[in-house]
Structure formats: C-alpha cells, structure tokens
C-alpha cells in the first residue's frame, strides 16, 4: 500500500446535545478501498460530512495529504483533492447531466473539462447518452452514476462515497459496485460508507465497523467478512 493520505484521530461530533461521533479514529492509504460499515444511525454519514467540512469535530485531528483540515471550508477541500458523493446523490436536478459534470470540475482549469468528461463517459457510457437531459429525469441508478461522475471530474485523490447502493435494485447495486471496483483499479483511492456490508467488504481492502458513534472493529475486508460478530450483526448469520 502507498502513503497514508487520510488520518483521523479521536474526532467527536455533536448535533446540539446529541453526541453523534465518539472518539473515532481511522486512516486511509493511497490505493485502498476502505469501507465504513454499520447500521443506520451509527454515524457513518456524519463522519463523512465532518471530513468534507460540512460538520465540525470538537476534538482530535483530521489530516489529509499531510495537512490538517480540521477547520477547512468545504469548498477549499475539493481543490485539495477530497471529493464527497453525498448520501441521496444530491445531483442538481434542474441542470443537465453535462452541466452537473461541469460543476464537478468547478475548481479545475477549464482545459481539464473536456478530458474529464471523456474519462467519466468512459466509466459511465449511460451518462454520455443522456448528457443533454435534465438530471431530475434520470433514474435513481443513473443519478448515482452522475453523482459519482461529478465527483470524479475534480480528479480527486480521495473519493468518498456515501451509501452508493441506497434505494437501488440489486442488479443496479451490482453495476455500481463494479464501477467502484473499476475506479479503484484505475488508481482512485476510495472511502466507502455502506449499509450493504456484504458488498462493501467484498471489494474493500480494509474496513471499519461503526456502532452508535464508535468504531468497534477493524480489519481487512476478508477478516471482517469472516468475523462472527460482523456476520451475525450485518450479514444475516
């Protein structure tokens, strides 16, 4: 594995009086797919939002590419190479597919848009077919592809995916995970938050299990898949 690119140490996040994230620490190295699994409400999405600057941690440290990003504004982090595909995709519904992708490259010089589009369309041929279409009219799976493609337009060093399988039919989930694997093979480092533990761990280099705001287990994808507690709690036996 390559250099460590993300280092999170003892972060604590509060929503008012609710203590949502408790002393969470983990790290991601270049070239990995790291899965963050856990039940609904375990704090996975909150963790991602804290990393991308939408929420603040009260304590601890977050380092990205060797630099502290604890207090960075979200819009600055994109330029540093951190891309976040939020839960529920959040594509710009009234803009076309291509306009959404252009927004993904907002921090990049204009000359990178055309090659970026080509790269994204190679991964998602479906988006190319629909590029003039208003993205609110896309299906859920296509919107997920668009959200991922949009994040790739910023040429990220770390791609954070929040529940890419949410609300999708099994066949589409397979497709999305194939693409995640493909992106990983093409050299993208990925932090994957998923409730679908089976799928996530089967493609992950390493994984962390979150429960009620804490990291309770960690290991390689295979170790976690074979762990009895994980099997009982998340894999149905």
């Amino acid at each position, binding site marked *: 594995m390559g250099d460590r690119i993300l280092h999170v140490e003892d972060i604590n996040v509060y929503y008012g009086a609710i203590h949502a994230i408790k002393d969470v620490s983990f790290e991601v190295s270049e070239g990995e797919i790291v899965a963050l699994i856990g039940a609904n409400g375990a704090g996975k999405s909150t963790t991602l939002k804290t990393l*991308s*600057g*939408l929420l603040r941690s009260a304590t601890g440290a977050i380092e990205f590419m060797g630099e502290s990003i604890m207090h960075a*504004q*979200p*819009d*600055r*982090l*994109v*330029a540093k190479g951190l*891309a*976040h595909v*939020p839960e*529920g995709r*959040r*594509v*710009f*519904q*009234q*803009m076309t597919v291509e*306009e959404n992708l*252009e*927004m*993904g490259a*907002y*921090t990049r010089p*204009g000359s990178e848009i055309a090659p970026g589009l080509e790269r994204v369309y190679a991964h998602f041929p479906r988006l190319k077919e629909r590029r003039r279409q208003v993205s*609110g009219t896309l299906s*859920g799976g296509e*919107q997920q592809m668009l959200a991922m493609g*949009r*994040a790739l337009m*910023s040429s990220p060093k770390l791609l954070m995916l929040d529940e890419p399988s949410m609300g999708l039919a099994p066949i589409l989930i397979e497709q999305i995970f194939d693409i995640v694997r493909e992106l990983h093979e093409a050299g993208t480092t990925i932090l994957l938050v998923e409730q679908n533990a089976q799928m996530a761990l089967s493609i992950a280099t390493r994984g962390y299990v979150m429960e009620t705001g804490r990291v309770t287990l960690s290991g390689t994808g295979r170790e976690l898949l074979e762990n009895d507690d994980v099997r009982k709690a998340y894999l149905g036996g």
Partner: protein
Amino acid sequence: MTVFLQYLVNGLSMGSVYAIIALGYTMVYGIAKMLNFAHGDVIMIGAYISFCVTSYLGLPAIVSVVAAVAVCTALGILIEGFAYKPLRQAGPLAVLITAIGVSYFLQNAAQLIWGATPKNFTSIVSFPVPDFLRAYNVSAVSLVTVVACLVIMAGLMWFTGKTKMGKAMRAVSEDKAAAQLMGINVNRTISMTFAIGSALAAIAGVLLCSYSPVLQPTTGSMPGIKAFTAAVFGGIGSIPGAFVGGILLGIIEAMAQAYISTSLANSIVFAVLIVVLLVKPAGLFGRYVPEKV
C-alpha cells in the same frame, strides 16, 4: 386606434422598467432564495446618485449611469454582507423582517442626505424621435428602456446558462451543501448575485426617474412592490418570467388607467395577479419540480 396604441406604448415602456426591476428581484430570489424587499430602495439610491452626478457635478448622463451602477453594486454587496449573511441559517421570517428594516433604513438615510423635498430629475436620454413614432407616444426614454430591458434579459439568460459563474449560481440555488461539495464558494456566489441585482436596480432607477421625474426617498417603494408582483406573476426565479410579468403588468396598468379608472388601476393590477395565482400558483413561467428521493 391611435389612442389605444399610445396607451400600449406607455404600458410597454413602463412595463420594461418593471421588468428590469423584476429581473433583479428574481435573480436574488432564484439564487439566494430570499425576497430582498430593499430592492426598490436601491433603485431610489441609484436615481439619487445619477441625479447628483449630473446636477451637482455637471458630468454627462452616461457617467452618471456608470456611477449609479457602481455605487448600487457596492451597496448591494454591503447590504448582503452586513444584513443578510449573518442570517444564512435563520428562518425565512427573520430574513424578511431584516429586508423590510433595510428598506426603511435606506429611505431614511436618503432623507437625511438629500432631504424630503422632491428633486426634479432630468431625463438622461434625449434624442430626436421621428414624428410618426412620436405620434404614438414613443419617446427617446421609452425606446432606450425597451432596448435596455431586452438586452438585460438576454444577457442574464446567457450568463446563467452559459458561464461558469452563472451555472454555479444555479447550482447554489438548488442545493447549497452539494454546491459546496463541488468547491463552489456559496457566500461569494450569493454576494455576486446581489451585485448583479443591485446593478440592475441602478439602471432601473435612472430609467424610472427619466419617465416620472419626481425623485424623493420613497420613489422606489411602489415600483419595487409592483415589480415584485410582476416577478411573482411571471413565476419568481424565472428570468423570462420576470420579463413577461413586467411587460404584462405595465400594459395591464396602462390599459386599466386608460379605459377603467386611474384611481383603480393599482387595484386592478393586483386583482389580475390574484386571479393568475389562483389559476397557476407558480406564476406564468414558474414550475414546481417534483423532488425525487
């Protein structure tokens, strides 16, 4: 027939002024999702600036327009930064009340600076209009206003549709958090929107007072409210909607004054608005986009 056309020309010209104001309202509402009720008063400030530059400094009209645009742009950015930005997380009512406060602040500040006595604004445009046009009440101001309005609308459509900054504004208007995740600086984008809206207000102010030369601290209120009505009429947030809404409102007003009653004209205008909203709640060009979850 001639009389009807004359009224139509009056309506078109006044409607173009409303449209320019409404475009400012709709830009700010469309992107920042707030009703800037102080917009009408920025118009009045723009007119005063233009008045001062021509009457006190004796500079040419075009310089006064540039000065008005510059001052109002800066004023728009300042208002947004001081009054609205701290309320970004607050409810819409807090912002609305603040906007009303800013409106009164600007009116009183103008009264303090320029006094309550109305100034006599000299039209900034004067060139000879051919006789056959003049027969229909077409004046230099009305020609300039209609052209300015068309150019501004086309410019805004091009800006929001084709430029990077314009597209970023649309992204912010849909989803601020997602826009931030694209690397868009939401605060800067919103202040840019205010800058554009206020620049339009300055132009509208100068044209408005070129029509009706009485300039006083409350000059912007009524046209501001009517233009807001026009923006809602056309579908607030929609650029072509603001344009069509403004023009229609101007024509309805002129026709009501001509054929029904001068004193009832305003009531008629607002009655039409109510009917339109009953039939089409989102306005003529507004759309409710169903949200996909």
